[in-house]
């Protein structure tokens, strides 16, 4: 879906003029955390008096070329640490707003609808599972998002993504 189409549908959903939506790509590049403690991969504070609407969290984890531990069939770039075990969640002002035990697979690389009020710090947090420590990787993130008037936050409130996850 093109940006123009996304803006159109967000405008329809919020009853706010298309002209009031600014597309924003928010990115980060970080070395992958080697520990299993919860780590913020991205911290962003939306501008005051705006609503920050996130429609996709794109993430890739990229190992070094020719890393000796890589073998044929290794496909890390599609999975956070190639194990399927990491957890991921969002925090606003350092308080979790999505389930802390949710698999990263729920949050990344698929359509979502999250909204955050301006001026409030947002963190994307990852937590590796104990026992899974792949080689050093670079994590790149690109959040597809929009900056909209402050009233968009309440108007989208009932549609926002909820996460219902079990984690074994």
């Amino acid at each position: 879906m093109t940006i123009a189409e996304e803006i159109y549908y967000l405008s329809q959903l919020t009853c706010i003029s298309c002209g009031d939506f600014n597309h924003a790509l928010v990115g980060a590049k970080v070395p992958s955390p080697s520990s299993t403690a919860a780590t913020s991969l991205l911290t962003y504070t939306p501008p005051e008096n705006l609503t920050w609407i996130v429609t996709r969290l794109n993430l890739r984890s990229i190992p070094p070329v020719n890393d000796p531990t890589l073998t044929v069939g290794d496909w890390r770039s599609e999975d956070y640490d190639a194990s399927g075990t990491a957890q991921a969640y969002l925090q606003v002002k350092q308080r979790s707003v999505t389930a802390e035990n949710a698999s990263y697979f729920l949050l990344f690389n698929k359509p979502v609808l999250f909204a955050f009020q301006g001026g409030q710090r947002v963190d994307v947090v990852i937590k590796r599972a104990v026992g899974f420590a792949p080689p050093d990787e670079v994590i790149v993130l690109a959040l597809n998002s929009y900056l909209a008037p402050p009233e968009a936050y309440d108007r989208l409130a009932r549609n926002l993504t909820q996460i219902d996850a079990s984690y074994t």
Partner: protein
Amino acid sequence: MIAQEIFKISALSCLPCSELIHLLVGGKLFDPVDGEIPPSIAREGHAFVEDRSLAYQAFISALPPAIYRKIDCVEGVCFVVPNEFAPDFERVAREQQIEIEYGNLPTSKTILDYTVPVNFTWIVTLVNVRSIPPVNDPALTVGDWRSEDFDASGTAKAKWRVNRSDVTQETSTNFCLLNHGCLFAFKGGDRVRLIVERAPGAKPPTQQIVVAVNSYLAPPEAYDRLASNLTQIDSSFS
């Protein structure tokens, strides 16, 4: 995109956009069971009782010998072959509050188990599933592409089950159901399970299965209004 989907489902169901809540339902589980089917019970019409609780033990001990022909137990799953001439089998199970499932096989595994909140309709539009082997697993070879296929064999089947009944074709391949756009709706209070079944002989390495279901919670009237649009599966499996 979510806003677009909400808009379109709203149009289809004649419900206001504000009544639709986007919901990601997911989980992670470790390596589905892929045991062998004991040849003595590998036939249609058997029932099995999957329960190690006291209720299960009471049930087995309460079964009058006349109403069943055989009990085989494999790794905690007992297969009770009822005597088709004795009508009391299900009554005894109900009294002991044991759930009986017919036709399930030990190669089947529930990869998602979700009970729809009461007074909502649960609308599913995409079931994302990945099966992830360990990095550097010695069984992996060049061209291995497990992340896109349930067990890299193309042979696994998948189906939806609501309460005790299968609602999609049992023979449909996992490729039909998983990682493609779809439109399924389930009523509030129903227990919905996504079941996969490996083909005999398909035994890849130990894997993590991650599941993320893209869905919406809508008012209960959405169920009937979407009924004529819902995904049907027409597949053959050979």
